[in-house]
């Protein structure tokens, strides 16, 4: 993943070199295609469990995760699986998780986008009680600070989660200790069915940063490059030891809270406006074409790659075995040894 603005990119006025920009387009297109295909499979009754569409918000998910180094930790949510894919998770194992298979990252112990790969890609296994991971991100950042490692932690939640007490606890604590952490709020304007106006009485979430003693930045979450730029600055600030930043990335959730929800509470005009003029994938593709960074053939090639990888992932998932029913109680304690042998995991000896 890109770490610095390279000279040729800086000279051209672009934030990243061309191959990196193409990579961003790949992640955006992967996210969109995955989201649409998984929804279709869900509706056809071919996918068990649940789906949580991130459509319309890919600019935020890719933009923030692309600003991280491999060693930085990410504390994501169920809606931003794309951020974890951008961090490097293997689509095959992600899809095996959706189908409850042993090769999923959580070996069938959890499903869908409640996923994580701590030892591999430093992503925390998502939990539903948002922003439940915010306090945990403080601990990861604390460890980086103590070790002087220069790594940082990033946590994501939605607009609704900012109403929860833990959000305030974690922001306050991170500022008190100047922890190397970046707080991302993916403001898609609806917490399930509840609009922003019924979640908070301040005009923006970003301005709350001042209350905790940290910068708050509001950014168009549908513009991947803007998001990336803001996130990169926050990441570097944290890395320098200057403490946390609050980022509010505004977009709109195009689909319902989960696969079952038609989201009729979203005003039609608002949705149409976002779908027609603020499509993060289409707009970025157009930008790259306008800048002559990609050709139509390049785009077609990326799209073909995405579709091929999806099919490979689907096949891999369906071919992967289910977990053994007899293993249901294993892994309750570390000494059970259940996770020994998993990549990066050595059970009890890992931590001692």
């Amino acid at each position, binding site marked *: 993943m890109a770490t610095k603005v390279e000279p040729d990119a800086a000279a051209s006025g672009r934030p990243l070199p061309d191959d990196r920009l193409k990579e961003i387009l790949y992640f955006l297109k992967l996210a969109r295609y995955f989201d649409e295909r998984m929804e279709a499979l869900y509706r056809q009754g071919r996918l068990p469990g649940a789906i949580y569409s991130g459509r319309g918000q890919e600019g935020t998910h890719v933009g923030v995760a692309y600003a991280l180094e491999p060693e930085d930790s990410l504390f994501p949510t169920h809606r931003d699986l794309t951020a974890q894919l951008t961090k490097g998770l293997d689509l095959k194992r992600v899809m095996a998780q959706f189908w409850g298979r042993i090769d999923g990252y959580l070996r069938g112990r959890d499903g869908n986008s409640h996923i994580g790969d701590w030892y591999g890609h430093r992503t925390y296994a998502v939990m539903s009680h948002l922003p439940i991971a915010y*306090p945990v991100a403080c601990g990861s950042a604390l460890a980086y600070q103590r070790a002087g490692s220069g790594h940082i932690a990033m946590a994501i939640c939605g607009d609704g989660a900012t109403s929860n007490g833990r959000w305030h606890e974690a922001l306050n*604590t991170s500022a008190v200790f100047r922890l190397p952490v970046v707080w991302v709020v993916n403001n898609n304007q609806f917490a399930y069915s509840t609009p922003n106006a019924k979640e908070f009485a301040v005009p923006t979430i970003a301005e709350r940063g001042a209350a905790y003693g940290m910068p708050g930045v509001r950014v168009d979450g549908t513009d991947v490059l803007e998001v990336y730029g803001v996130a990169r600055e926050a990441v570097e600030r944290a890395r320098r030891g200057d403490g946390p930043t609050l980022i509010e990335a505004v977009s709109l959730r195009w689909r319902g809270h989960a696969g079952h929800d038609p989201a009729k509470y979203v005003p039609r005009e608002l949705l149409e406006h976002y779908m027609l003029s603020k499509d993060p994938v289409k707009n970025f593709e157009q930008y790259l074409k306008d800048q002559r960074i990609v050709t139509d053939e390049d785009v077609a090639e990326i799209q073909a790659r995405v579709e091929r990888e999806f099919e490979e992932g689907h096949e891999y998932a369906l071919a992967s075995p289910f977990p053994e029913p007899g293993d249901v109680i294993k892994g309750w304690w570390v000494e059970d040894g259940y996770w020994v042998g998993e990549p990066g995991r050595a059970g009890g000896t890992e931590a001692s």
Partner: protein
Amino acid sequence: MATQQVEAGAAGHGAEPRGKRDEDGQATYLIAIAEALWEEMERDDRVFMLGEDIGVYGGAFKVTEGFIERFGPERVMDTPIAEETIVGMSVGAAMEGLRPVAEFQYADFMSSGFDEITTVLSRYHYRAGVPLPVVLRGPSGGGVRASSFHSINPEPWYAYAGGIKIMCPAFPSDAKGLLKSAIRDDNPSLFLEHKWIYRRIKEQVSEDPEFLVPIGSADVKREGSDVSIITYGAMVHKALEAAEALAHRGISAEIVDLRTVYPLDEETILRSIEKTSRALVLYESYRFLGIGTEVAAVIAEKAFEHLDAPVVRLAPPNVPVPFSPPLEDAFLPQIADIEAAVDRLAGW
């Protein structure tokens, strides 16, 4: 991490916590706990403590007095009053390879961090295979006129969550050995220190830095043949007094101190029942769905053929711990209640 040397003390292994042993070398329960923390902090620099007022002030009960001078503010970390974050931050630090020990001023306030304990700490390893060597410790229990919000026995709430080992020691040696084991264990632990015992009970406690008491192991504190009293925490001391009185009347009570309430040491419980054929389950958590409820179920399920009488439970009612002395005394099982319950059992 910044540390500074202080004078070597009577404990015989370098510096020591400010609270000291008696001249005859006995340690109170509180001092034994402080020694366990001190020794593990000395032994392993991944161990650090966090909590409210534990640094400069030395903790609400002064368990950590003197620690900040020795280990510095990074390893003896005063936090904002934010219990969800204290727990969550401990989890995150443990995921990164540290071994946090979080103090709660009272075990009552662990419920302010309930979700991070029951949803994150208890389930993360099962779901994702990441060990979380986190210890949450704090004073629990009643009998000190501290009323509703400073007296509870929260162990059943967290035992039900699963995935967290829960210790409720009754003696200084067990407290020291178990806390050291908990800090070294790769699983999460809840270490509940009964505040009634803190300064009341003292004994000779090992000064060997490798002295450990195994987690999940009960201990017979008094041998007997007529009735088994299965108990833990401060109730162990009441049971011992009751047993003394019963002995004068010719009734021999065996006292099994669970020490760890989750996971339960079923083997030691059942061995005692096989010997006495009568069981009194005495506990300070609530009668309804308290720890003793599970103990009684285990005995009924696995020792039915050995029983000469129904299993009897003695525990407080499911009401908040009241303040007024006559009310609190009525709430908590008393020595006379224990004797009466044993008499009923022995009469079968």
